[in-house]
């Protein structure tokens, strides 16, 4: 019997090892939300990110020149916008005061730098150099001065991993800024799309898309992109809205984390899209 088993092992050991490793992989795939697995991941990427942040800076210097040029231009544009917004802000404060509304415009932001990017066509993630020590938690939005970048997925003490907009696992509730119509936006591996939009919804090419207040992850409107194309789905009753993001994951280097206080009541609800 033992000889037979030994014979079988010697003859098929490659297949046994392959099967065993495939089973381990599939088991791990089902354990992604396990707390222990998350802890191991936090330690692993935290340690690695400390090294990669130094390495990334060395290759980053060449891109800083171009970014500075863009930033100067954006600064000038923002300065003009700011002066207009100041005027509107004064008027808004007066009207808010009259209506007795609370001021909710001061949102806490934490600056961070990207230390590494894991680029694949479907699962783009970035690692940033701020973590739980700065109060960052999974679920917080990552933005740049152009707009939405992604959502924090995992944190270690000094580093965090964020899923970017170009990650199939990130689905956002967004709305058309013009007519306040909501929809679910996702990355389908090739493009950002708002799915299952009824044809009766008034979407036009060039409309600005922002995050929706009804989102359980991002309760403030953050610019996401503009409508690039409207495609009719095969059913004939729904549209697929293609969105061009304001921020390109490939080129972004400096980001902000929106330190939003999580809404406990919302989090207790099972409808939270982040807990998929």
């Amino acid at each position, binding site marked *: 019997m033992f000889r037979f088993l030994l014979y079988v092992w010697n003859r098929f050991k490659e297949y046994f*090892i392959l099967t065993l490793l495939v089973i381990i992989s599939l088991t791990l795939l089902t354990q992604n939300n396990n707390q222990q697995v998350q802890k191991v991941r936090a330690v692993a990427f935290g340690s690695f990110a400390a090294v990669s942040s130094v390495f990334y800076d060395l290759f980053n210097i060449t891109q800083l020149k171009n970014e500075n040029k863009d930033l100067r231009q954006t600064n000038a544009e923002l300065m003009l916008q700011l002066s207009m917004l100041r005027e509107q802000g004064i008027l808004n404060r007066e009207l808010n005061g009259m209506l007795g509304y609370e001021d909710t415009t001061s949102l806490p932001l934490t600056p961070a730098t990207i230390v590494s990017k894991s680029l694949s*066509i479907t699962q783009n993630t970035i690692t940033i150099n701020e973590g739980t020590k700065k109060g960052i938690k999974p679920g917080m939005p990552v933005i740049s001065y152009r707009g939405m970048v992604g959502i924090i997925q995992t944190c270690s003490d000094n580093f965090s991993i964020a899923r970017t907009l170009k990650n199939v696992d990130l689905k956002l509730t967004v709305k058309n800024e013009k007519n306040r119509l909501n929809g679910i936006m996702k990355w389908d591996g090739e493009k950002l799309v708002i799915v299952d939009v009824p044809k009766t919804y008034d979407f036009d090419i060039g409309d600005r898309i922002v995050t929706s207040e009804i989102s359980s992850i991002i309760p403030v409107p953050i610019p996401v992109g503009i409508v690039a194309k409207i495609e009719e789905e095969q059913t004939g009753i729904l549209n697929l809205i293609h969105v061009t993001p304001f921020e390109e994951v490939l080129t972004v280097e400096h980001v902000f984390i929106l330190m939003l206080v999580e809404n406990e009541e919302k989090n207790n609800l099972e409808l939270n899209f982040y807990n998929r």
Partner: protein
Amino acid sequence: MKLKLKYFIPLLIFFPVVLIQLTVVPFISIQGVVPDLLLIAVVYFSISYGQIFGTITGATYGLMYDLISGNLIGSTMLSKTVAGFVAGYFSSETRREKYLYTYSFSIVVLITGLIDAIIFAFFSVIDFNTNIFLALFNHALMPSIYTSLVSILVVIVPYRRNFE
């Protein structure tokens, strides 16, 4: 001593390779398509040391990469395990030299790259609305070709050194 070193080298190689993959490679991406340096390393070890060694190296590399990069844990492990296993078919005493030190290496990388990318894409982009052939072209063929082209360096660099 030599046997121990054989097991130690892939682990030693992993960190610089993944460091380059996550920090330098994004700068050479074309339309979001990047070469997979880890796959090149897995194929190299699989042809050099055999199928079992390649399969285990693929699994280890995949798992460590999943932990570091934020990918779905197990997805890269699964694809790299199978890639290492397939690459092992090109490893034998008689064929090793042929596949390791000639441009055939890039062909092996292309084949395993396709298998690796298809398995990885299966776990990350299951969307029945997408055209399957178009999806395979974008998610599997393009990255595999790019990886295959980069793998030519593995053949050229040692060859030029020998020549000089």
